[in-house]
Protein backbone atom coordinates (compact mmCIF):
# COMPACT_ATOMS: atom_id res chain seq x y z
CA UNK A 1 0.00 0.00 0.00
CA UNK A 2 1.28 3.43 -0.83
CA UNK A 3 1.23 5.69 2.17
CA UNK A 4 3.06 8.64 0.73
CA UNK A 5 2.16 9.66 -2.81
CA UNK A 6 3.90 12.56 -4.33
CA UNK A 7 5.70 14.35 -1.55
CA UNK A 8 7.83 16.92 -3.25
CA UNK A 9 9.45 19.34 -0.94
CA UNK A 10 12.75 20.80 0.07
CA UNK A 11 13.77 21.82 3.52
CA UNK A 12 16.72 24.14 3.62
CA UNK A 13 19.47 24.09 6.20
CA UNK A 14 18.55 26.17 9.21
CA UNK A 15 14.82 26.02 8.67
CA UNK A 16 12.26 25.35 11.36
CA UNK A 17 9.46 23.45 9.66
CA UNK A 18 6.20 22.06 11.02
CA UNK A 19 4.50 19.06 9.45
CA UNK A 20 0.82 18.92 10.21
CA UNK A 21 -1.92 16.49 9.35
CA UNK A 22 -4.61 14.32 10.83
CA UNK A 23 -3.78 10.80 11.92
CA UNK A 24 -3.33 8.53 8.92
CA UNK A 25 -2.19 11.41 6.77
CA UNK A 26 1.25 9.84 6.53
CA UNK A 27 3.18 12.23 8.73
CA UNK A 28 4.69 9.46 10.84
CA UNK A 29 5.75 7.59 7.73
CA UNK A 30 7.29 10.74 6.34
CA UNK A 31 9.17 11.23 9.58
CA UNK A 32 10.38 7.62 9.39
CA UNK A 33 11.72 8.22 5.92
CA UNK A 34 13.32 11.51 6.89
CA UNK A 35 14.84 9.86 9.95
CA UNK A 36 16.28 6.96 7.92
CA UNK A 37 14.28 4.59 10.07
CA UNK A 38 12.34 3.28 7.12
CA UNK A 39 13.15 2.71 3.48
CA UNK A 40 11.02 3.88 0.59
CA UNK A 41 10.08 2.22 -2.70
CA UNK A 42 10.05 5.09 -5.15
CA UNK A 43 11.46 8.53 -5.44
CA UNK A 44 14.53 9.97 -3.87
CA UNK A 45 15.56 11.57 -0.60
CA UNK A 46 18.63 13.72 -0.45
CA UNK A 47 20.10 14.54 2.93
CA UNK A 48 22.91 17.05 2.87
CA UNK A 49 23.14 16.47 -0.87
CA UNK A 50 23.53 12.69 -0.58
CA UNK A 51 20.97 10.23 -1.91
CA UNK A 52 19.56 8.11 0.89
CA UNK A 53 17.88 5.54 -1.34
CA UNK A 54 18.59 1.88 -0.59
CA UNK A 55 20.96 2.36 2.35
CA UNK A 56 22.15 -0.68 4.20
CA UNK A 57 21.17 -0.92 7.83
CA UNK A 58 24.70 -0.07 8.89
CA UNK A 59 24.91 2.98 6.66
CA UNK A 60 21.52 4.17 7.86
CA UNK A 61 22.66 3.84 11.47
CA UNK A 62 25.82 5.78 10.62
CA UNK A 63 23.97 8.65 8.94
CA UNK A 64 21.42 8.67 11.74
CA UNK A 65 24.08 9.14 14.32
CA UNK A 66 25.98 11.72 12.24
CA UNK A 67 23.16 13.86 10.91
CA UNK A 68 20.02 13.29 12.88
CA UNK A 69 18.68 13.80 16.36
CA UNK A 70 15.29 12.55 17.49
CA UNK A 71 12.80 13.98 19.95
CA UNK A 72 9.67 11.99 20.72
CA UNK A 73 6.27 12.71 22.18
CA UNK A 74 6.78 10.26 25.04
CA UNK A 75 10.43 11.32 25.55
CA UNK A 76 11.66 7.75 25.17
CA UNK A 77 14.35 8.00 27.75
CA UNK A 78 15.74 4.70 28.98
CA UNK A 79 14.04 4.38 32.32
CA UNK A 80 16.89 2.77 34.21
CA UNK A 81 19.53 5.26 33.12
CA UNK A 82 20.19 8.64 34.73
CA UNK A 83 19.73 11.89 32.82
CA UNK A 84 23.44 12.05 32.12
CA UNK A 85 23.63 8.43 30.93
CA UNK A 86 20.65 8.97 28.66
CA UNK A 87 22.20 12.06 27.13
CA UNK A 88 25.53 10.26 26.68
CA UNK A 89 24.09 7.17 24.99
CA UNK A 90 24.38 8.34 21.33
CA UNK A 91 28.08 8.94 21.89
CA UNK A 92 28.45 5.36 23.17
CA UNK A 93 27.33 4.14 19.78
CA UNK A 94 29.79 6.52 18.12
CA UNK A 95 32.61 4.97 20.11
CA UNK A 96 33.44 8.05 22.18
CA UNK A 97 35.25 7.18 25.38
CA UNK A 98 33.45 7.22 28.69
CA UNK A 99 35.06 10.26 30.26
CA UNK A 100 34.50 12.38 27.15
CA UNK A 101 30.91 11.16 26.96
CA UNK A 102 30.14 12.21 30.49
CA UNK A 103 31.83 15.56 30.03
CA UNK A 104 29.81 16.33 26.91
CA UNK A 105 26.59 15.03 28.46
CA UNK A 106 26.99 17.43 31.39
CA UNK A 107 27.71 20.24 28.99
CA UNK A 108 24.52 19.59 27.04
CA UNK A 109 22.45 19.14 30.20
CA UNK A 110 23.70 22.57 31.20
CA UNK A 111 22.56 23.89 27.85
CA UNK A 112 18.98 22.75 28.56
CA UNK A 113 19.25 23.98 32.14
CA UNK A 114 19.31 20.61 33.85
CA UNK A 115 22.91 20.09 34.91
CA UNK A 116 21.77 19.84 38.53
CA UNK A 117 19.58 16.89 37.59
CA UNK A 118 22.31 14.82 35.94
CA UNK A 119 22.03 12.00 38.43
CA UNK A 120 18.23 11.69 38.39
CA UNK A 121 16.29 8.90 36.79
CA UNK A 122 13.58 9.86 34.28
CA UNK A 123 10.77 8.98 36.67
CA UNK A 124 12.14 11.53 39.14
CA UNK A 125 11.63 14.35 36.65
CA UNK A 126 8.66 16.25 35.28
CA UNK A 127 7.47 15.91 31.68
CA UNK A 128 9.10 19.15 30.64
CA UNK A 129 12.38 18.17 32.23
CA UNK A 130 12.29 14.77 30.53
CA UNK A 131 11.72 16.39 27.17
CA UNK A 132 14.63 18.74 27.79
CA UNK A 133 16.82 15.74 28.61
CA UNK A 134 15.63 14.16 25.36
CA UNK A 135 16.52 17.33 23.47
CA UNK A 136 19.97 17.37 25.07
CA UNK A 137 20.36 13.76 23.96
CA UNK A 138 19.31 14.69 20.42
CA UNK A 139 21.85 17.51 20.39
CA UNK A 140 24.86 15.73 21.80
CA UNK A 141 25.93 14.12 18.53
CA UNK A 142 25.96 17.54 16.81
CA UNK A 143 23.23 16.71 14.31
CA UNK A 144 22.37 18.84 11.30
CA UNK A 145 18.70 18.02 11.65
CA UNK A 146 16.45 17.41 14.62
CA UNK A 147 13.30 15.44 13.96
CA UNK A 148 10.69 16.05 16.62
CA UNK A 149 7.61 13.84 16.64
CA UNK A 150 4.86 15.63 18.62
CA UNK A 151 7.47 16.99 21.07
CA UNK A 152 4.82 18.83 23.07
CA UNK A 153 2.06 16.25 22.77
CA UNK A 154 2.41 15.09 26.37
CA UNK A 155 3.03 18.50 27.92
CA UNK A 156 0.82 21.30 29.26
CA UNK A 157 0.80 24.58 27.37
CA UNK A 158 3.30 26.33 29.65
CA UNK A 159 5.94 23.61 29.38
CA UNK A 160 5.06 23.25 25.70
CA UNK A 161 6.10 26.83 25.17
CA UNK A 162 9.30 26.33 27.15
CA UNK A 163 10.18 23.36 24.97
CA UNK A 164 9.38 25.31 21.81
CA UNK A 165 11.52 28.18 23.02
CA UNK A 166 14.36 25.73 23.52
CA UNK A 167 13.88 24.28 20.04
CA UNK A 168 13.75 27.74 18.52
CA UNK A 169 16.97 28.76 20.25
CA UNK A 170 18.61 25.62 18.96
CA UNK A 171 17.33 26.43 15.50
CA UNK A 172 18.93 29.86 15.78
CA UNK A 173 22.28 28.12 16.16
CA UNK A 174 21.78 26.78 12.65
CA UNK A 175 20.28 23.36 13.24
CA UNK A 176 17.43 22.40 10.96
CA UNK A 177 14.34 21.32 12.89
CA UNK A 178 11.36 19.38 11.61
CA UNK A 179 8.43 19.25 14.03
CA UNK A 180 5.49 16.94 13.52
CA UNK A 181 2.49 18.30 15.38
CA UNK A 182 -1.25 18.66 15.23
CA UNK A 183 -1.34 21.78 17.45
CA UNK A 184 -1.81 24.97 15.50
CA UNK A 185 -0.17 27.21 18.08
CA UNK A 186 2.97 25.08 17.94
CA UNK A 187 3.00 25.04 14.16
CA UNK A 188 2.46 28.79 14.12
CA UNK A 189 5.82 29.28 15.83
CA UNK A 190 7.64 27.62 12.91
CA UNK A 191 8.90 29.26 9.75
CA UNK A 192 6.90 27.04 7.48
CA UNK A 193 4.01 24.59 7.76
CA UNK A 194 3.64 21.55 5.52
CA UNK A 195 0.12 20.14 5.68
CA UNK A 196 -0.33 16.49 4.73
CA UNK A 197 -3.51 14.78 3.70
CA UNK A 198 -3.78 11.19 2.45
CA UNK A 199 -0.07 11.02 1.77
CA UNK A 200 0.09 14.18 -0.26
CA UNK A 201 1.09 17.72 0.50
CA UNK A 202 -2.14 19.68 0.80
CA UNK A 203 -0.54 23.09 1.05
CA UNK A 204 2.49 24.85 2.36
Amino acid at each position, binding site marked *: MDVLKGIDCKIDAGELVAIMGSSGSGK*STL*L*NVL*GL*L*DDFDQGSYHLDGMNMKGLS*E*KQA*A*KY*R*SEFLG*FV*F*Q*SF*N*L*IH*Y*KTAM*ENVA*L*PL*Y*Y*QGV*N*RRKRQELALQFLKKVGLEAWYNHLPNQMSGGQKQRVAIA*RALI*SNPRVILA*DEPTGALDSKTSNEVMELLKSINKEGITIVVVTHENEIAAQCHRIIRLRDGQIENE
Partner: protein
Amino acid sequence: MFDRDAWLEIFNTVLSNPLRTGLTGLSIALGIFILVVMQGLGSGLESGVQETFGDNAANVMEVRTGNAQLAFRGRKPNRRVELHNPDEQALKNELDTMPSWSRLVYRWGSTVQYGNQQGSYNVRGVDPDQSEIGLVKLTAGRFVSPYDLAQERKVAVIGAQLVQDLYPKGTDPAAVVGTFIQLRGIQFAVIGAFDQSGSRWENRSVYVPFSTAQSLFQNDDVVSRVSIGTGDAEIEETRETSVSMLGWLKDRLVVHPDDAEGVWVENRNEEAEIFRQIFQGIRLFVWFVGLMTLLAGAMGVANIMAIVVRERTKEIGIRKALGATGSRIVGQIIQEAVFLMLISGCVGLLAGIWLLQGIAPFVEHDFFSNPKVNFETAMLALFILVTVGVISAVGPAVRAVSIRPVEALRDE
Protein backbone atom coordinates in the same frame (compact mmCIF):
# COMPACT_ATOMS: atom_id res chain seq x y z
CA MET B 1 33.92 -8.97 23.74
CA PHE B 2 36.46 -7.55 26.16
CA ASP B 3 35.53 -3.98 25.46
CA ARG B 4 35.40 -2.31 28.85
CA ASP B 5 32.72 0.10 27.76
CA ALA B 6 30.49 -2.69 26.50
CA TRP B 7 30.87 -4.51 29.80
CA LEU B 8 30.06 -1.39 31.78
CA GLU B 9 26.96 -0.98 29.66
CA ILE B 10 26.04 -4.60 30.40
CA PHE B 11 26.65 -4.33 34.15
CA ASN B 12 24.62 -1.16 34.16
CA THR B 13 21.73 -2.80 32.32
CA VAL B 14 21.80 -5.98 34.38
CA LEU B 15 22.09 -4.22 37.71
CA SER B 16 19.52 -1.53 37.05
CA ASN B 17 16.82 -4.08 36.23
CA PRO B 18 16.72 -6.22 39.36
CA LEU B 19 13.36 -7.84 38.65
CA ARG B 20 14.25 -8.89 35.14
CA THR B 21 17.71 -9.99 36.22
CA GLY B 22 16.25 -11.85 39.17
CA LEU B 23 13.69 -13.74 37.10
CA THR B 24 16.13 -14.77 34.40
CA GLY B 25 18.77 -15.70 36.94
CA LEU B 26 16.29 -17.64 39.04
CA SER B 27 15.05 -19.72 36.13
CA ILE B 28 18.58 -20.78 35.25
CA ALA B 29 19.76 -21.22 38.82
CA LEU B 30 16.70 -23.29 39.65
CA GLY B 31 17.14 -25.50 36.60
CA ILE B 32 20.74 -26.26 37.45
CA PHE B 33 19.97 -26.59 41.15
CA ILE B 34 17.25 -29.19 40.59
CA LEU B 35 19.39 -31.06 38.11
CA VAL B 36 22.34 -31.19 40.48
CA VAL B 37 20.18 -32.31 43.39
CA MET B 38 18.47 -34.98 41.27
CA GLN B 39 21.83 -36.24 40.04
CA GLY B 40 23.08 -36.31 43.60
CA LEU B 41 20.05 -38.20 44.87
CA GLY B 42 20.36 -40.64 41.98
CA SER B 43 24.00 -41.31 42.70
CA GLY B 44 23.16 -41.62 46.39
CA LEU B 45 20.55 -44.23 45.56
CA GLU B 46 23.00 -46.06 43.37
CA SER B 47 25.81 -46.14 45.88
CA GLY B 48 23.36 -47.04 48.64
CA VAL B 49 22.06 -50.05 46.73
CA GLN B 50 25.62 -50.91 45.79
CA GLU B 51 26.68 -50.95 49.40
CA THR B 52 23.72 -53.00 50.53
CA PHE B 53 23.66 -55.64 47.83
CA GLY B 54 26.90 -55.11 46.00
CA ASP B 55 28.96 -57.52 48.11
CA ASN B 56 26.92 -60.47 46.90
CA ALA B 57 27.89 -59.88 43.36
CA ALA B 58 31.41 -59.69 42.12
CA ASN B 59 33.52 -60.13 39.08
CA VAL B 60 34.70 -63.45 40.43
CA MET B 61 34.67 -67.09 39.34
CA GLU B 62 35.00 -69.86 41.89
CA VAL B 63 36.28 -73.38 41.37
CA ARG B 64 35.01 -75.99 43.83
CA THR B 65 34.98 -79.75 43.98
CA GLY B 66 32.40 -82.19 45.35
CA ASN B 67 31.27 -85.79 44.94
CA ALA B 68 31.29 -87.20 41.42
CA GLN B 69 28.03 -89.04 40.72
CA LEU B 70 28.94 -90.93 37.56
CA ALA B 71 31.45 -93.67 36.88
CA PHE B 72 34.09 -92.51 34.45
CA ARG B 73 37.27 -94.01 33.00
CA GLY B 74 37.18 -96.87 35.50
CA ARG B 75 36.45 -94.65 38.51
CA LYS B 76 33.62 -95.60 40.81
CA PRO B 77 30.54 -93.40 41.12
CA ASN B 78 29.93 -91.33 44.22
CA ARG B 79 33.56 -90.61 44.95
CA ARG B 80 35.16 -87.54 46.44
CA VAL B 81 36.91 -85.30 43.93
CA GLU B 82 39.79 -83.23 45.22
CA LEU B 83 41.81 -80.40 43.77
CA HIS B 84 45.46 -80.66 44.74
CA ASN B 85 48.23 -78.09 44.50
CA PRO B 86 49.58 -79.51 41.20
CA ASP B 87 46.05 -79.38 39.70
CA GLU B 88 45.69 -75.80 40.79
CA GLN B 89 49.13 -74.95 39.37
CA ALA B 90 48.27 -76.64 36.08
CA LEU B 91 44.97 -74.77 35.92
CA LYS B 92 46.74 -71.51 36.49
CA ASN B 93 49.19 -72.29 33.70
CA GLU B 94 46.40 -73.38 31.43
CA LEU B 95 44.54 -70.10 31.68
CA ASP B 96 45.65 -66.79 30.34
CA THR B 97 46.80 -64.53 33.12
CA MET B 98 43.77 -63.58 35.23
CA PRO B 99 43.58 -60.20 37.01
CA SER B 100 43.61 -61.83 40.44
CA TRP B 101 43.87 -65.35 41.78
CA SER B 102 43.48 -66.74 45.26
CA ARG B 103 43.57 -70.29 46.58
CA LEU B 104 41.55 -70.97 49.69
CA VAL B 105 41.46 -73.57 52.40
CA TYR B 106 38.82 -73.43 55.08
CA ARG B 107 38.83 -74.52 58.68
CA TRP B 108 35.33 -73.96 59.99
CA GLY B 109 34.78 -73.69 63.70
CA SER B 110 38.38 -73.14 64.69
CA THR B 111 39.03 -72.11 68.25
CA VAL B 112 40.63 -68.71 68.48
CA GLN B 113 41.94 -67.48 71.78
CA TYR B 114 43.19 -64.14 72.99
CA GLY B 115 44.16 -63.90 76.62
CA ASN B 116 41.39 -65.59 78.54
CA GLN B 117 38.78 -65.05 75.88
CA GLN B 118 38.09 -67.65 73.24
CA GLY B 119 35.52 -68.48 70.63
CA SER B 120 34.82 -70.47 67.51
CA TYR B 121 35.56 -68.77 64.20
CA ASN B 122 36.29 -69.57 60.57
CA VAL B 123 39.87 -69.69 59.49
CA ARG B 124 40.63 -69.11 55.83
CA GLY B 125 44.01 -69.71 54.27
CA VAL B 126 44.27 -67.35 51.34
CA ASP B 127 46.56 -65.73 48.80
CA PRO B 128 47.20 -61.93 48.92
CA ASP B 129 44.80 -61.42 46.00
CA GLN B 130 41.90 -62.46 48.25
CA SER B 131 41.90 -58.94 49.63
CA GLU B 132 40.93 -57.69 46.18
CA ILE B 133 38.62 -60.56 45.26
CA GLY B 134 36.72 -60.47 48.55
CA LEU B 135 36.72 -56.66 48.70
CA VAL B 136 38.18 -56.89 52.17
CA LYS B 137 37.77 -53.58 53.97
CA LEU B 138 40.77 -53.23 56.24
CA THR B 139 40.26 -51.04 59.27
CA ALA B 140 43.82 -51.38 60.53
CA GLY B 141 47.14 -52.94 59.61
CA ARG B 142 47.62 -54.84 56.37
CA PHE B 143 46.51 -57.95 54.53
CA VAL B 144 48.45 -61.15 53.88
CA SER B 145 51.50 -60.37 51.71
CA PRO B 146 53.43 -62.49 49.21
CA TYR B 147 56.27 -62.51 51.71
CA ASP B 148 54.01 -63.95 54.43
CA LEU B 149 53.02 -66.59 51.92
CA ALA B 150 56.57 -67.48 50.91
CA GLN B 151 57.77 -67.65 54.51
CA GLU B 152 54.66 -69.46 55.75
CA ARG B 153 54.49 -66.84 58.44
CA LYS B 154 52.05 -67.28 61.28
CA VAL B 155 50.17 -64.03 60.79
CA ALA B 156 46.44 -63.36 60.87
CA VAL B 157 44.00 -60.69 59.73
CA ILE B 158 40.95 -60.79 61.95
CA GLY B 159 37.32 -59.78 61.43
CA ALA B 160 35.47 -57.11 63.39
CA GLN B 161 33.50 -59.74 65.33
CA LEU B 162 36.69 -61.18 66.78
CA VAL B 163 37.89 -57.75 67.82
CA GLN B 164 34.58 -57.23 69.57
CA ASP B 165 34.39 -60.69 71.17
CA LEU B 166 37.95 -61.37 72.24
CA TYR B 167 39.38 -57.98 73.07
CA PRO B 168 38.34 -55.63 75.89
CA LYS B 169 35.25 -53.58 75.13
CA GLY B 170 35.83 -50.63 72.81
CA THR B 171 39.24 -51.76 71.60
CA ASP B 172 40.31 -49.77 68.56
CA PRO B 173 41.06 -52.01 65.54
CA ALA B 174 44.50 -50.38 65.33
CA ALA B 175 45.24 -51.63 68.86
CA VAL B 176 44.85 -55.30 67.93
CA VAL B 177 47.65 -55.12 65.37
CA GLY B 178 50.74 -56.58 66.93
CA THR B 179 48.89 -58.68 69.48
CA PHE B 180 49.13 -62.49 69.49
CA ILE B 181 46.27 -64.95 69.29
CA GLN B 182 46.08 -68.72 69.55
CA LEU B 183 44.68 -70.27 66.38
CA ARG B 184 43.83 -73.93 66.89
CA GLY B 185 46.44 -73.82 69.62
CA ILE B 186 49.15 -72.21 67.52
CA GLN B 187 50.34 -68.69 68.14
CA PHE B 188 49.70 -66.15 65.36
CA ALA B 189 50.60 -62.47 65.18
CA VAL B 190 47.70 -60.20 64.27
CA ILE B 191 48.78 -57.99 61.35
CA GLY B 192 45.46 -56.43 60.45
CA ALA B 193 41.74 -56.13 61.11
CA PHE B 194 38.81 -55.76 58.72
CA ASP B 195 35.17 -54.91 58.87
CA GLN B 196 32.72 -56.05 56.19
CA SER B 197 29.99 -53.96 57.70
CA GLY B 198 26.62 -55.64 57.42
CA SER B 199 28.03 -59.11 57.09
CA ARG B 200 28.26 -60.97 60.39
CA TRP B 201 29.42 -64.07 58.62
CA GLU B 202 32.41 -62.40 57.00
CA ASN B 203 33.30 -60.66 60.22
CA ARG B 204 33.64 -64.01 61.99
CA SER B 205 36.56 -64.90 59.72
CA VAL B 206 40.30 -64.95 60.19
CA TYR B 207 42.58 -64.73 57.17
CA VAL B 208 45.97 -66.43 57.31
CA PRO B 209 48.48 -67.14 54.50
CA PHE B 210 47.40 -70.06 52.33
CA SER B 211 50.73 -71.83 52.68
CA THR B 212 50.67 -71.49 56.46
CA ALA B 213 47.13 -72.86 56.69
CA GLN B 214 47.86 -75.78 54.39
CA SER B 215 50.99 -76.83 56.22
CA LEU B 216 49.71 -76.28 59.79
CA PHE B 217 46.06 -77.25 59.64
CA GLN B 218 45.93 -80.07 57.11
CA ASN B 219 48.08 -83.02 56.25
CA ASP B 220 47.54 -82.96 52.51
CA ASP B 221 47.81 -80.45 49.69
CA VAL B 222 44.09 -80.15 48.94
CA VAL B 223 42.86 -76.75 47.78
CA SER B 224 39.27 -76.18 48.98
CA ARG B 225 38.49 -73.52 46.50
CA VAL B 226 40.06 -71.23 43.92
CA SER B 227 38.70 -67.72 43.56
CA ILE B 228 39.54 -65.98 40.32
CA GLY B 229 38.95 -62.30 39.80
CA THR B 230 37.93 -61.52 36.23
CA GLY B 231 38.64 -57.80 36.38
CA ASP B 232 36.57 -55.91 33.89
CA ALA B 233 36.19 -58.77 31.42
CA GLU B 234 32.88 -58.86 29.56
CA ILE B 235 30.23 -61.26 30.80
CA GLU B 236 30.43 -63.24 27.53
CA GLU B 237 34.14 -63.64 27.94
CA THR B 238 33.81 -64.90 31.52
CA ARG B 239 31.13 -67.36 30.37
CA GLU B 240 33.48 -68.78 27.77
CA THR B 241 36.34 -68.94 30.27
CA SER B 242 34.24 -70.72 32.88
CA VAL B 243 32.94 -73.28 30.35
CA SER B 244 36.39 -74.09 28.99
CA MET B 245 37.81 -74.13 32.50
CA LEU B 246 35.18 -76.60 33.63
CA GLY B 247 35.89 -78.84 30.63
CA TRP B 248 39.58 -78.79 31.35
CA LEU B 249 39.05 -79.49 35.08
CA LYS B 250 36.70 -82.41 34.41
CA ASP B 251 39.28 -83.93 32.11
CA ARG B 252 42.12 -83.37 34.57
CA LEU B 253 40.21 -84.59 37.62
CA VAL B 254 38.60 -87.49 35.73
CA VAL B 255 34.99 -86.42 36.06
CA HIS B 256 32.37 -87.46 33.53
CA PRO B 257 31.50 -84.54 31.17
CA ASP B 258 27.82 -84.89 32.17
CA ASP B 259 28.55 -85.06 35.87
CA ALA B 260 27.05 -81.99 37.55
CA GLU B 261 28.48 -82.62 41.00
CA GLY B 262 32.14 -83.57 40.79
CA VAL B 263 33.62 -80.19 40.04
CA TRP B 264 32.03 -76.89 39.20
CA VAL B 265 32.92 -73.37 38.27
CA GLU B 266 30.59 -70.80 39.67
CA ASN B 267 30.61 -67.60 37.66
CA ARG B 268 29.48 -64.87 40.00
CA ASN B 269 29.67 -62.45 37.13
CA GLU B 270 26.17 -63.67 36.34
CA GLU B 271 24.90 -62.16 39.58
CA ALA B 272 27.02 -59.11 38.97
CA GLU B 273 25.40 -58.81 35.57
CA ILE B 274 21.97 -58.61 37.20
CA PHE B 275 23.21 -55.87 39.48
CA ARG B 276 24.77 -54.10 36.58
CA GLN B 277 21.38 -54.07 34.94
CA ILE B 278 19.73 -52.74 38.09
CA PHE B 279 22.28 -49.95 38.27
CA GLN B 280 21.85 -49.26 34.62
CA GLY B 281 18.14 -48.89 35.31
CA ILE B 282 18.78 -46.48 38.16
CA ARG B 283 21.19 -44.49 36.06
CA LEU B 284 18.72 -44.40 33.18
CA PHE B 285 16.05 -43.21 35.58
CA VAL B 286 18.28 -40.48 36.93
CA TRP B 287 19.20 -39.44 33.44
CA PHE B 288 15.58 -39.38 32.41
CA VAL B 289 14.66 -37.23 35.39
CA GLY B 290 17.63 -34.98 34.68
CA LEU B 291 16.69 -34.66 31.04
CA MET B 292 13.13 -33.76 31.93
CA THR B 293 14.35 -31.22 34.48
CA LEU B 294 16.65 -29.77 31.87
CA LEU B 295 13.81 -29.62 29.37
CA ALA B 296 11.52 -27.89 31.86
CA GLY B 297 14.35 -25.54 32.82
CA ALA B 298 15.13 -24.80 29.20
CA MET B 299 11.51 -24.02 28.47
CA GLY B 300 11.37 -21.71 31.48
CA VAL B 301 14.52 -19.96 30.34
CA ALA B 302 13.25 -19.65 26.78
CA ASN B 303 10.03 -18.18 28.07
CA ILE B 304 11.70 -15.67 30.34
CA MET B 305 14.17 -14.60 27.66
CA ALA B 306 11.39 -14.11 25.13
CA ILE B 307 9.38 -12.01 27.60
CA VAL B 308 12.40 -10.01 28.65
CA VAL B 309 13.33 -9.16 25.09
CA ARG B 310 9.75 -8.29 24.19
CA GLU B 311 9.64 -6.03 27.20
CA ARG B 312 12.69 -4.26 25.83
CA THR B 313 11.24 -3.60 22.38
CA LYS B 314 10.89 0.07 23.17
CA GLU B 315 14.39 0.36 24.58
CA ILE B 316 15.72 -1.33 21.46
CA GLY B 317 13.84 1.20 19.34
CA ILE B 318 15.38 4.06 21.30
CA ARG B 319 18.87 2.65 20.97
CA LYS B 320 18.36 2.20 17.27
CA ALA B 321 17.16 5.77 16.83
CA LEU B 322 20.28 6.90 18.68
CA GLY B 323 22.54 5.27 16.16
CA ALA B 324 22.94 1.65 17.29
CA THR B 325 23.04 -0.97 14.57
CA GLY B 326 20.83 -4.01 14.84
CA SER B 327 23.76 -6.41 15.15
CA ARG B 328 25.22 -4.36 17.97
CA ILE B 329 21.95 -4.50 19.90
CA VAL B 330 21.52 -8.24 19.34
CA GLY B 331 25.15 -8.72 20.33
CA GLN B 332 24.61 -6.82 23.54
CA ILE B 333 21.47 -8.80 24.40
CA ILE B 334 23.30 -12.08 23.81
CA GLN B 335 26.29 -10.97 25.84
CA GLU B 336 24.02 -9.90 28.65
CA ALA B 337 22.12 -13.18 28.53
CA VAL B 338 25.27 -15.33 28.57
CA PHE B 339 26.82 -13.30 31.37
CA LEU B 340 23.70 -13.42 33.48
CA MET B 341 23.01 -17.09 32.85
CA LEU B 342 26.58 -18.19 33.53
CA ILE B 343 26.64 -16.35 36.85
CA SER B 344 23.25 -17.62 37.97
CA GLY B 345 24.02 -21.11 36.65
CA CYS B 346 27.10 -21.22 38.85
CA VAL B 347 25.03 -20.00 41.78
CA GLY B 348 22.54 -22.83 41.19
CA LEU B 349 25.39 -25.31 40.83
CA LEU B 350 27.01 -24.23 44.09
CA ALA B 351 23.67 -24.18 45.91
CA GLY B 352 22.93 -27.73 44.72
CA ILE B 353 26.35 -29.01 45.74
CA TRP B 354 26.07 -27.20 49.05
CA LEU B 355 22.70 -28.83 49.72
CA LEU B 356 23.99 -32.30 48.88
CA GLN B 357 27.08 -31.80 51.01
CA GLY B 358 24.85 -30.50 53.76
CA ILE B 359 22.37 -33.36 53.80
CA ALA B 360 24.67 -36.25 52.94
CA PRO B 361 26.11 -36.72 56.44
CA PHE B 362 22.63 -36.80 57.99
CA VAL B 363 21.02 -39.33 55.70
CA GLU B 364 21.81 -42.92 56.62
CA HIS B 365 19.62 -45.39 54.83
CA ASP B 366 20.16 -48.82 53.33
CA PHE B 367 19.35 -47.54 49.89
CA PHE B 368 20.97 -44.16 50.12
CA SER B 369 24.50 -43.06 50.81
CA ASN B 370 27.23 -40.76 49.63
CA PRO B 371 25.45 -38.66 47.00
CA LYS B 372 27.85 -37.35 44.38
CA VAL B 373 27.47 -34.93 41.51
CA ASN B 374 29.16 -35.51 38.24
CA PHE B 375 30.81 -32.18 37.58
CA GLU B 376 30.97 -32.71 33.84
CA THR B 377 27.26 -33.49 33.72
CA ALA B 378 26.52 -30.31 35.63
CA MET B 379 28.72 -28.28 33.30
CA LEU B 380 27.07 -29.86 30.27
CA ALA B 381 23.66 -29.01 31.69
CA LEU B 382 24.76 -25.43 32.29
CA PHE B 383 26.07 -25.23 28.75
CA ILE B 384 22.80 -26.58 27.35
CA LEU B 385 20.71 -24.15 29.40
CA VAL B 386 22.85 -21.19 28.39
CA THR B 387 22.69 -22.24 24.75
CA VAL B 388 18.93 -22.60 24.91
CA GLY B 389 18.71 -19.24 26.66
CA VAL B 390 20.80 -17.56 24.00
CA ILE B 391 18.89 -19.15 21.14
CA SER B 392 15.59 -18.18 22.69
CA ALA B 393 16.85 -14.64 23.22
CA VAL B 394 18.15 -14.26 19.67
CA GLY B 395 14.79 -14.87 17.98
CA PRO B 396 12.84 -12.16 19.81
CA ALA B 397 15.87 -9.85 19.76
CA VAL B 398 16.20 -10.09 15.98
CA ARG B 399 12.46 -9.55 15.67
CA ALA B 400 12.60 -6.57 18.03
CA VAL B 401 15.51 -5.09 16.11
CA SER B 402 13.74 -5.50 12.78
CA ILE B 403 10.69 -3.58 14.02
CA ARG B 404 10.95 -0.06 12.69
CA PRO B 405 11.88 2.20 15.59
CA VAL B 406 8.98 4.59 15.08
CA GLU B 407 6.63 1.64 15.38
CA ALA B 408 8.44 0.39 18.46
CA LEU B 409 8.34 3.87 19.95
CA ARG B 410 4.74 4.58 19.08
CA ASP B 411 2.64 5.33 22.10
CA GLU B 412 -0.02 2.77 22.73
